[in-house]
């Protein structure tokens, strides 16, 4: 059976909230794929904990998007009944887990950004977004510390772990530019003090990142060509496979609950 995709009225605030919600949901789902497969029990629990934080953030943001949109949509419909092209997440967060080094590099790139981003968003004139930011900021600080410690351990570890960590950095680097890009609709929100300009965080993000990478005896790539598209629904092939798993229950048994 095929269930129709929902229609979404993407006004600037709805689109804003959906983009951040999609980032959190997709990364949370990726991390949950490690559940039962992590290199050790403590790490299995850590990744599941972080996934839970992210999915919790996604729920708050989807619920707010639904409220602002003012139609029949809700958190579940946003998550389960939109197709690949309707998803607005960063390409970075949908990239496959790969090996553990790849997961941790993706985690470092994202959490170093999210930590700065949510802290800055606490001053948003939108009270709900500011409240969500204040909760997410606290969680991101732990996520960043977790990823930083692993990157240092992997980079400054064996030849094998070092090579894999460096390979992951080189591979994922091109997906980091999108975090700092802004389109016209979002520019208007920034002028209205509802959103903050992510571009203004890039210097500090690089400082945080460089400190960890240096300590890990690794190197940041010198290339500056960046891949974009996720924010407007142009995704890598990986997202479709992820959604197929994430949505299969609701697509097969519409409205199913337990």
């Amino acid at each position, binding site marked *: 059976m095929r269930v129709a995709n929902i229609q979404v009225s993407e006004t600037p605030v709805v689109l804003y909230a959906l983009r951040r919600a999609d980032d959190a949901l997709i990364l949370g789902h990726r991390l949950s794929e490690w559940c039962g497969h992590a290199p050790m029990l*403590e790490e299995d629990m850590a990744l599941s904990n972080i996934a839970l934080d992210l999915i*919790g953030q996604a729920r708050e943001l989807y619920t707010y998007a639904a409220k602002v949109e003012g139609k029949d949509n809700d958190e579940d419909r946003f998550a389960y009944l939109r197709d690949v092209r309707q998803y607005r997440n960063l390409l970075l967060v949908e990239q496959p887990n790969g090996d553990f080094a790849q997961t941790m590099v993706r985690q470092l790139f994202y959490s170093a950004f999210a930590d700065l981003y949510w802290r800055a968003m606490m001053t948003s004139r939108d009270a709900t977004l500011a*409240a969500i930011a204040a*909760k997410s900021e*606290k969680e991101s600080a732990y996520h960043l510390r977790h990823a930083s410690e692993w990157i240092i351990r992997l980079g400054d570890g064996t030849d094998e772990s070092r090579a894999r960590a460096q390979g992951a950095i080189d591979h994922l680097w091109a997906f980091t530019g999108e975090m700092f890009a802004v389109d016209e609709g979002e520019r208007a929100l920034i002028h209205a003090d509802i959103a903050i300009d992510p571009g203004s965080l890039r210097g500090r993000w690089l400082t945080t990142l460089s400190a960890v990478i240096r300590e890990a005896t690794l190197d940041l790539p010198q290339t500056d060509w960046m891949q974009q598209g996720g924010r407007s629904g142009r995704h890598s092939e990986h997202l479709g496979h992820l959604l197929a798993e994430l949505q299969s229950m609701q697509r097969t048994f519409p409205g199913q609950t337990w």
Partner: protein
Amino acid sequence: MVTVLERHNELRQRAWDAAASVVDPEIPVLTIADLGVLRDVVLDGDHVEVAITPTYSGCPAMNMIALEIEVALERAGFRRPTIRTVLSPAWTTDWMSEEGRRKLHAYGIAPPQASNSRRALFGEQAVACPQCGSANTELLSEFGSTSCKALWRCRACREPFDYFKCH
């Protein structure tokens, strides 16, 4: 007039006590009042609205806590109470009561330190072992058996223990 006001206050207190008796399903020695999760109880006529705040965004205990509050209020005679979730101000372990800290410690969980310690990038705080009291302890994992706990080990008595991390 005085009696009406007194009656209102007494009813509200009863509603508060009922809500405050609900325990965290993951740490059953702590009530939601000890944790600071219970934010407000509003009595309007004979309708009760309870405001709670999540510890972590994805805390899976929130649904169960909301359900338990409804049951506790119904038992205390308040019909169809409503539960509201508030996000702001964001929950912090600084709201945990002294009583809560004492109960946690007695249960074998090291209570949280002041929240200003959480931003240190590689800051290892000294957490005393709740079993033997030694400060000679080490962090095993920052993410423990629930969102709000980290896993530590005591080097003196060799016992692993949970630390309720500051937030």
